[in-house]
């Protein structure tokens, strides 16, 4: 590989472990990001083009 990854991937994955719960940090980041995007999609107002489009 000529190109280096943005994040150094040349090591085993880092895990979080809490009682029975175990998950890689990368998977956890994706899930947290999904929750943030979900909340933002509800909270951020949607700009309308013009009122005539409404039914």
């Amino acid at each position, binding site marked *: 590989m000529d190109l280096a990854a943005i994040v150094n991937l040349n090591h085993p994955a880092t895990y979080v472990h809490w009682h029975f719960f175990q998950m890689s940090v990368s998977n956890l980041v994706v899930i947290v990001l*999904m929750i943030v995007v*979900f909340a*933002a*999609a509800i909270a951020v107002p*949607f700009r309308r083009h013009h009122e005539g*489009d*409404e*039914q």
Partner: protein
Amino acid sequence: MTEPAPSPAAKQPAPSSWTARVREWGVRAMPPERLLPDSQPAYMSSWIYIFGVLTIASLTVIIGSGVVLGLKGPAWWHYTGVGHFFNSIHLWAVELFFFCMVIHLWAKFFMAAWRGGRSRTWMTGVISFLISIVAAFTGYVSQQNFDSQWIATQAKDGINATGAGAFFNVLNFGQMYSYHLLLLPVVVVGLVVAHILLVRRNGIVPPLPLSDLVKARPAADGGERAASQAR
């Protein structure tokens, strides 16, 4: 007492040609004005409604990059920069596909989107989600690298324990590649097309009725106050 007027459909005899019957059935089931509407309800003006179409956009990129990878063969992406590029496009489109699909799923779950005769829309979505997981899994074991070998050797024990290993052998590259390249994409695309047609026919699910929310408030005048505040 007068006889009721016969309906227009009763006046016309059924067409003798099967093609005409199929056409009439198709137009009745999927009226053109519903298939390609020129307006949508006002409650759709929210970002939460875009995740279905983002999932379809990701699926389009997956299919396009997958066609190129399939035409060039499973080893191409290992030794050429262009092949590696298309493999990366394929992988990241899958990541976006699941990212958007799960947000779409959460949104539709909290909207109770199966209401109003939309159970088939909901179920085609659920089944296409489950089949997509199997499609992604067969892609992981078709990578032909140490990662796919590790996944396949770990997964075989689990799949053998379910009894499915007799006809779904994750160590058989040809079988996994066939599933990934043809069988599962055909099922996923077919289900997604059915899902979209059902959404078009039945329309977007309206918001939950305000009366249900007001019922939860015990105050005597709470209902009217809550309704006026919501307006």
